[in-house]
């Protein structure tokens, strides 16, 4: 007892926290976009006629989903250099986040593709549309509409999980918090503030994505 909380350091720290938060937003923006594009390809390939492709993607998804993100990150950042692949921390973080994100969203997108009634595809093919157009214009939009809420949750989860990339010295929000508390000796207050920033970011990101989805997807998010 007898400990008084002190937030006097906060004035000088605002810009550092802001730049850390900007880095976190940058990381999640890049890996979410890349992850969703890749997972659409992966989910389509998972349903293709090539058995090797199907099994390869299934193996990748299981491997990523059954190991911790932190270990994947360490493997990419510390392990790959022994194969001659040396990555900048930010690149390693984006790569790890994208690979992780893709594994989860592949399952989500796949479920969405399966949820589109078969008749939709058959009808489009009967109208003489090419298979690629059928996928892009008929099946995918309907699938995205169904899975949009699940994608939103997955992006928010990934944003929260990105706190871990501070461990390979990417200067995002958690890294800045670590540096701040080492300088101010106010660990609890620092992490409290940063936790609240994360909370605000996750609520904000969710709202933004839902608002964006309502605007982009015809008929709104289900």
């Amino acid at each position: 007892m007898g400990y008084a909380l002190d937030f006097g350091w906060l004035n000088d720290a605002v810009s550092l926290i802001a730049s850390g938060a900007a880095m976190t937003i940058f990381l999640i923006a890049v890996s979410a976009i890349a992850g969703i594009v890749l997972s659409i390809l992966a989910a389509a390939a998972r349903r293709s006629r090539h058995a090797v492709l199907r099994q390869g993607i299934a193996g990748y998804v299981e491997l990523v989903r059954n190991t911790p993100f932190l270990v994947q990150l360490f493997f990419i950042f510390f392990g790959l250099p022994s194969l001659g692949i040396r990555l900048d921390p930010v690149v390693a973080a984006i790569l790890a986040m994208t690979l992780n994100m893709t594994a989860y969203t592949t399952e989500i997108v796949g479920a969405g593709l399966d949820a589109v009634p078969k008749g939709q595809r058959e009808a489009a093919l009967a109208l003489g549309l090419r298979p690629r157009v059928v996928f892009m214009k008929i099946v995918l939009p309907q699938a995205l509409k169904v899975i949009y809420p699940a994608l939103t949750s997955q992006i928010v989860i990934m944003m929260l999980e990105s706190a871990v990339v501070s461990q390979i010295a990417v200067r995002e929000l958690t890294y800045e918090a670590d540096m701040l508390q080492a300088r101010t000796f106010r660990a609890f207050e620092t992490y409290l503030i940063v936790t609240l920033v994360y909370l605000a970011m996750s609520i904000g990101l969710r709202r933004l994505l839902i608002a964006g989805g309502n605007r982009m997807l015809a008929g709104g998010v289900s």
Partner: protein
Amino acid sequence: MIEFTLWDIIRNLLLAARWTVLLSAVAFAGGTIVGLLILFLRISKRRWMRQFAEYYIGLFQGTPLLMQLFLLFFGLPLLGFRIEPWTAAVLGLTLCASAFLAEIWRGGVQAVPLGQWDAGSSLGLHYLKQLRLIILPQAFAITRAPTVGFLVQLIKSTALTSIIGFEELVRTSNAINNATFEPFTVYGFVALIYFALCFPLTRYAKVLELRTLKH
């Protein structure tokens, strides 16, 4: 520098994996107990109780687990508790698990048809007995697959406790890596150990899911 054979690396990693398993088990048990309490609040008839549980769940699902661990690790000593990495790890994972489990089970309770409550009342059972004898058994039966799925997530989450200094699999692997400079082998094996722990559970969750779908 100490010489490490491949077997030394694997043996030490497997020994450290015991702590990962123990931590997961304790946190899951603790999370079940606290999660049940939160569930009762979440489905309570009183508004303020529901509201509290909702904020509690939102707080733990809306912030990084790493921050929750840091706050406990640095916050509890301020309140006069002496705290070790193990205590902070168990407490942090328990609280986090309770929020997720309560939310999963709430979904199960809401999936039970309202008529089941009415039937319970008409048999003269009071609220707690309805819950214990009629509602919860059905709710747990429906949510068995996501509960096992969450256990997998929890096992993976224990990796984060390495950052606050708890000697589990990842922290041990960092030490071994610093001694051997063989990150590819070390982290590769760590990934394999986690996979061996989680994959059977993932499979089991899938089986449970298919079984509930059939009913």
